[in-house]
């Protein structure tokens, strides 16, 4: 139930008194509410759950695991 999916913000809007964004998930675009992440903007990768952006994804941290592919002996 706590499934959350990464997507990229394309555009930020104001609708019905809510801050929302158009987010692309691969080829699928959905309207996502930004009330939980008000400072997110176009180009940001965000994690979306139940129609809400939960967090901005940290691209540097995302690269860390790749070290394991290059260097199997690198530490935990």
């Amino acid at each position, binding site marked *: *139930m*706590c499934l959350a999916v990464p997507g990229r913000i394309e555009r930020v809007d104001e609708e019905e*008194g*809510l801050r929302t964004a158009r987010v692309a*998930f691969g080829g699928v675009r959905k309207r996502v509410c930004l*009330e*939980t992440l008000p400072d997110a903007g176009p180009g940001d990768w965000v994690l979306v759950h139940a129609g809400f952006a939960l967090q901005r994804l940290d691209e540097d941290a995302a690269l860390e*695991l790749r070290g*394991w592919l290059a260097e199997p002996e690198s530490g*935990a």
Partner: protein
Amino acid sequence: MRFVDEYRDPDLARRLADAVLARASRRWTVMEVCGGQTHAILASGLDALVRERVELLHGPGCPVCVTPLETLDRAQALVERPDVTLCSFGDMLRVPGSHGDLFGARARGGDVRVVYSPLDAARLAAREPARRVVFLAVGFETTAPAVAAAARWARKQGLANFQLLVSHVRVPPALEAIASAPDRRVDAFLAAGHVCTVMGTQEYEPIAARHRMPIVATGFEPADILQGLLQAVDQLERGAAEVEIQYRRAVRPEGNPAARALLEEVFEVADRPWRGIGTLPGGGLRLRGSYAAFDAERVFPEVTGAGAAESPDCRADAVLRGILRPPECPEFGRACTPDHPLGAPMVSAEGACAAYFAYRAPEPEEDPP
């Protein structure tokens, strides 16, 4: 998909699993908390990769599984009112209450609708002012901010026909209960990544310190889970008991401050019954007094749940606390199957019993050679 596929690389998973085996000098027992992690572990066979050195126990992190019968019965009773439209996430509709599930209520003519977001339910109430729209709000701290945002929006819009039947639960009290049980088998926890995305990790510090247990906030893909295990095993080997973050791309120590502020504005911590576990002090959330007009329990006080007794043959209590693995239950795959479940962990796609049923043949033995 970016931020997902790279964590499903089989070579990376094998290397991480080998690192876990190499680091462990004895066999440790680690519990992954979230049902999404349980699902990933069984679907990818991660437990088999590390079985010689790590026994994985599956935690209570399935909101569908721990929603009390009484709440499901109350939802059923609300659907019987001709003016009520009941909305919830799809997972909730198959869970049996005392008198069948919500799909059955819909088949009998009840107005039950599946929504993707709690905001969709609030918008429905705005569009259909003649209906009383009730959202069955289940889920952990991951989901509660979305519900809080929907409640705040409904209040701003002055919607009188939108109410919440709240059954939100909090993870830390459940970990505290498992950690302090006299028959505890767990040496370390992999904490639920997306709960920590919202809440951060501070709430886990006292649990790690008090019970001398490593707690690693961990993601959901195979490489995430194996790296979380490696961090937990490394701590156990060093005699450490710290809160660590494996899922760094999505979890900051302070969590998401805007989401936490929303939770704080709309909800307060309350004691909550967990199905299969019992009432946990501070185990959930309820609406604050300032949101009483949106609380289905206060707006429809006459609608109560029968809360009939659970099947005496169901061992969900032991499964949810990590005392019993699903295949060890005498009814597993016999009297209890996804088509004829005795308890909620066999119903929900994220329930531990359903995950074993879907991915595993019966196991003859579990001990390492």
